[in-house]
């Protein structure tokens, strides 16, 4: 059984039909990526999974449990952690407070403490800035904080929305290195990216989204070789 499964989900923003029947699955231990252009529905898919923009039709299950109509904060408690697009750090909360908010749904003080130490070893920069306000961090540090904050929920699946957005190439490398590291440590990851080259580099499988529908689904390697993907998302010759 897949860890996360979305079956034929439709989502609307008012009258706009944003997702037109998307089906994806993520197996335990995988990195799965959603790639596609702006407005293809990548972020909407994540937000629909998280319950922020609930699906009008279709079904989403987490470990076999239906979460289609579950409210966002309860979905987090069930094991879905998201580092949202644009990082969405709480700018007026300190780094530590941001991390505490990530662990809001948990009550195991020891586990929270352990996870906080873990993210600090993952990103020592955050440890140096633990008393600073989130708004004073650099873009890269904010991304580290966003990922760490999602990890603090001790999620069964981590959703990452555009972790490379607005970051210098070197930092993007670092972030993707961390994503691989997290996956090797056992975290299942659903990764949304515009940077298809990087995303397909770390992912096991990928889905290509176009105007709210899945147009291609395959192993990441196969997608890298796919002519259409190469032309549209990898900038021609590979």
């Amino acid at each position, binding site marked *: 059984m897949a860890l996360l499964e979305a079956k034929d989900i439709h989502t609307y923003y008012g009258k706009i039909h944003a997702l037109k029947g998307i089906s994806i699955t993520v197996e335990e231990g995988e990195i799965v990526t959603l790639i596609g252009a702006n407005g293809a529905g990548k972020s909407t898919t994540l937000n629909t999974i*998280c319950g922020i923009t609930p699906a009008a039709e279709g079904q989403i299950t987490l470990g076999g449990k239906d979460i289609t109509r579950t409210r966002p904060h309860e979905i987090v408690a069930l094991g879905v952690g998201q580092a949202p697009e644009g990082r969405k750090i709480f700018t*007026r909360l300190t780094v530590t407070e941001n991390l505490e*908010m990530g662990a*809001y749904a948990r009550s195991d003080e020891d586990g929270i403490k352990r996870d906080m130490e873990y993210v600090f070893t993952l990103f020592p920069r955050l440890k140096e800035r633990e008393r600073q306000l989130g708004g004073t961090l650099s873009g890269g540090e904010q991304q580290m904080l966003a990922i760490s904050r999602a990890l603090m929920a001790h999620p069964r699946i981590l959703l990452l929305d555009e972790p490379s957005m607005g970051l210098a190439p070197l930092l993007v490398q670092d972030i993707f290195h961390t994503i691989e590291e997290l996956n090797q440590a056992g975290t299942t990851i659903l990764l949304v990216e515009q940077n298809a080259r990087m995303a397909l580099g770390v992912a096991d499988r990928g889905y290509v989204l176009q105007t709210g529908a899945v147009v291609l689904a395959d192993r990441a390697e196969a997608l890298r070789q796919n002519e259409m993907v190469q032309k549209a998302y990898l900038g021609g010759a590979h």
Partner: protein
Amino acid sequence: MNDAQPQPGSRLPAFINVRALERRWRRLSVTDLVVWGIGVVLLLFVFWRIVLTFGQGAYTLESFIKNVIFGLAQGSIYALIALGYTLVYGILFMINFAHGEVFMSGTYIGFFVIAAMEESGFLAEQTLLALLIVFAVGMLSSMAVAVTLERIAYRPLRKAPRLVPLITAIGASIFLQQAFRGLFGSSTKVYPHVHLYALPQLFPQLEDGKGMDLISGKYDVQFALLGNDVNLVVQPFIFVIFIVALLMMAGLYWYVQRTKAGKAMRAVAEDKDTAALMGINVDRVIVNTFAVGAALAGAAGVLFALYTYQVTHTMGFIPGLKAFTAAVLGGIGNIPGAMFGGFALGFTESVAPGLLSIPHQLKDVVAFSMLVLILIFRPTGIFGEVLSEKKA
């Protein structure tokens, strides 16, 4: 524009930005001129009245001290109510105009309890315990009213344009006033005079050796200050109000800064969707916010009633508007701002009429003139930040 660039021909100190001034001068519109004109006229008026007051030699240090002390009590009440406006605004960007009625409801229901306890003699026997019960009842009643209001009147409108909940709040305010009038009549209820004696060893000369009456006591105090003989009638209760208010504010500060619920409140105030992604139940946090603001208002109401000895269904209206003014003065949405605004308004309202030699009844005019002036000259309030990116 690069500010570090040397500005030719400018010998002014560096903090005067010539170009910014120039730009401002060029963009000056008729409205600006009128607005600044009004400001200058008002300043001149205030200055002229103060000069006049002192010229007459009628203004005494005594009345100044008296007014400052009264302003302290007034300000404490305003600050406590203002916090409710600011907390809700901070999280929902909505002005809960029914907050004055939340204040009234708690006081009113508290009144029935204290009246019953007076009847049974419990109030005289166990004064302190009775007072604690009244405070608890007042706060809990206000909380119940505010939470109900949120659930049935505001929550369904969470996604509506911002004007809609505002109008609903005004409707809720009228509804609550009229409901209390319908249920309990429009007559003014007389709040019991409570006597709470303290420190008989320190003040053996007062109240036949029972000590100082902290609630209803009034004592003559005479001292000399700066060569003036000052004769005051001091009510210890004013200082009780002040201390209770400070303690509650300290409690609120601790709650918002240190507790998990308070941190969640700040997170929700900043970004509701992201807060939900953290597993925070946003609805619950919003209810909490209403409840905390209402608890402060309920406590303020009991203090207010113990001081004024009256309770009516309209008692929340003017204090509510004043507290709203205080919240705007401090910068609505800003917690220290509401505290500062409350004290500043209470102080100004109390001191200004005497200082300007205008009738004391005009204190409401002073308060609401302040509201208009802030809205014209500094709409974000004293501590307010420029709210650019988030307001939805």
